[in-house]
């Protein structure tokens, strides 16, 4: 079943390899070493079990495919810091030309990454930060800003006195805290109320359970804000089972093509806010680093809002 995309992928890769990519470099007026030489990039992913992280790898892979001189080796640490540390050390021994890492957590991975830097391997850190400054470039999105955008947007959609249910991610995790704080900031002085909140630990079945409790407690709910799209979908299923899904709107975060964007297109969610993976940007930055250019130490990715109107067109950037 998965054979077809793979076939097409390898076919296009083969085609791309046949195609001399000289025009690109000549357009810049100088011979670019990166097109002549093949580079190996090590990509250390902390947990491929999360769909968002699977998407990150896909984005890296798709972006790398555009450049036949790049070869990316993927490793998945399955949510284990020590395993990921082992992967970083393997990449160093293997002498990859560049390392991209999306670390599970800062403390245990800061030193291994610093050692890679000492070994002369430039490192791009994706999504989660490390301690100190021993890396080449950090690329990530700002969850506070995304939460804020969701709050602002929801404030414009709701009548005064509206009641909101907030389904939080794992509240001990930083993204959930940021998405909550940003949301509260975004709502600002809007005359609306978060009437029920619960920790659904990022999981859809939990979101459905918590939403059922919210439905039992509140005679009227105007909006559901979930910290991820599966959470919003779970809430929708609960409301639908209670015959109350028409009374409220559902907003989620992440906007993965298979998940949030698909839900918006189906009319299940009213909006979802993209939490970009940075996969494409990581490859672009990698090319710059490999070409010897200097890159900024920190890059903050912009987000996009997807609604029924703009979902097919790829959403709209938020301010």
């Amino acid at each position: 079943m998965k054979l077809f995309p793979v076939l097409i992928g390898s076919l296009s890769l083969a085609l791309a390899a046949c195609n001399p990519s000289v025009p690109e470099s000549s357009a810049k007026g100088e011979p670019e070493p990166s097109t002549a030489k093949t580079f190996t990039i090590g990509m250390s992913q902390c947990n491929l079990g999360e769909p968002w992280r699977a998407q990150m790898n896909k984005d890296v892979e798709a972006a790398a495919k555009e450049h036949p001189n790049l070869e990316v080796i993927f490793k998945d640490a399955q949510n284990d810091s020590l395993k990921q540390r082992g992967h970083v050390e393997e990449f160093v021994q293997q002498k990859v030309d560049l390392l991209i890492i999306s670390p599970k957590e800062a403390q245990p991975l800061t030193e291994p990454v610093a050692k890679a830097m000492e070994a002369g391997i430039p490192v791009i850190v994706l999504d989660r930060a490390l301690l100190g400054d021993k890396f080449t470039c950090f690329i990530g999105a700002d969850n506070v800003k995304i939460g804020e955008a969701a709050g602002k947007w929801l404030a414009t959609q709701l009548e005064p006195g509206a009641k909101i249910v907030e389904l939080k991610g794992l509240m001990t995790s930083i993204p959930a805290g940021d998405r909550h704080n940003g949301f509260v900031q975004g709502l600002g002085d809007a005359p609306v109320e978060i009437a029920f909140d619960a920790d659904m630990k990022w999981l859809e079945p939990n979101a459905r359970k918590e939403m059922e409790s919210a439905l039992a407690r509140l005679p009227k709910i105007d909006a559901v804000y979930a910290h991820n799209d599966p959470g919003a979908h779970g809430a929708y299923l609960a409301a639908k089972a209670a015959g109350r899904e028409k009374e409220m709107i559902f907003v989620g975060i992440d906007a993965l093509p298979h998940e949030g964007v698909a839900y918006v297109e189906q009319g299940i969610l009213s909006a979802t806010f993209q939490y970009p993976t940075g996969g494409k940007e990581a490859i672009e930055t990698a090319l710059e680093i490999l070409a010897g250019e200097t890159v900024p130490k920190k890059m903050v990715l912009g987000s996009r809002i997807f609604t029924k109107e703009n979902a097919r067109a790829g959403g709209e950037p938020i301010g």
Partner: protein
Amino acid sequence: MNAIPLRRFLATPAFKALLALLLVLLFGLVFHGDGAFFKLGTHRDALRQISVYGLLACGLTLTVISGGIDLAVGSVLALVAVFFSLASLHWGWSPVLAIPAALGVGAACGALSGTLTSWGRFQPFIATLAVMVIARGLAKTVSGGEKVSTAVQGPDGTMRYVEVPPVFRAIDSRVLGENLAVVSLILLLCLLITWLLLARHRWGRELYAIGGNEEAARLSGVPVGRAKLAAYVASGLFAAVAGICQAAQEQQGDPEAGAGYELTAIAIVVIGGTSLMGGRGGVGLTLIGMLTVGYLEKILSINSVPESTRLILTGVIVALAVLAQRSRR
């Protein structure tokens, strides 16, 4: 005349299990979440939410009574949920074909556990641990690591949406004037089947005998290997039913679904009073354990108790329930 049966009842595991349940219900009467506890819908939802765990616990009751354990149930649930979603959503199979095939997948996983345990002489913990990992890996492989949902990606990358099939809708609907979820009905049916097998069938008595003393059972002519194999196959079948229910309720097949569910299911069995040493217990106890865990979760949820407190309270209740079981046998 009456006093002796009563006293005897007070000493049964069933009464002790009921005590824990009553304690939890009392909790709900006090902390009713603005009256949410007094609404019928809350109880219907509590029963629906515990159903998937309860189905796993049915299978676990069988394997635990035989002196074993089945750690694979959560992963088998995921594998079946993924398979059933692929068949129903992506391949367009009719439920007449998809449901038996999904049950077959679960039974095959159970058969593997059972074969390793019965004839491979693996300890059940190890055998089912292996199957747990294998089933999770298979779930991730056949799904390509993604949730199998109504959004089907074509070879050219474009997305098309399929309707949620009627069988999903049917399983996730309610009967009796909207007062009972179909998944709860499926659970009750499975509980009944388990009870009939354990209490009224020769095979059930064999399982008790094996759990009590395997060597003695063997010497008295019980087909130990076959009976144990059947227990794991049944456990796989119940996990498959749970997987079908999970997929229908989520409207997708999530390869990560059911992670950690085996622990909740084991807790249900133990809180009910079925001994992890085997040979003692029953599915009626499992039902009580199920209600205890289900109501505890629901009551904590309607009061929007923070996660950290929930973990502590759940642990305390589990410990108390087991303590109550042990006191003065």
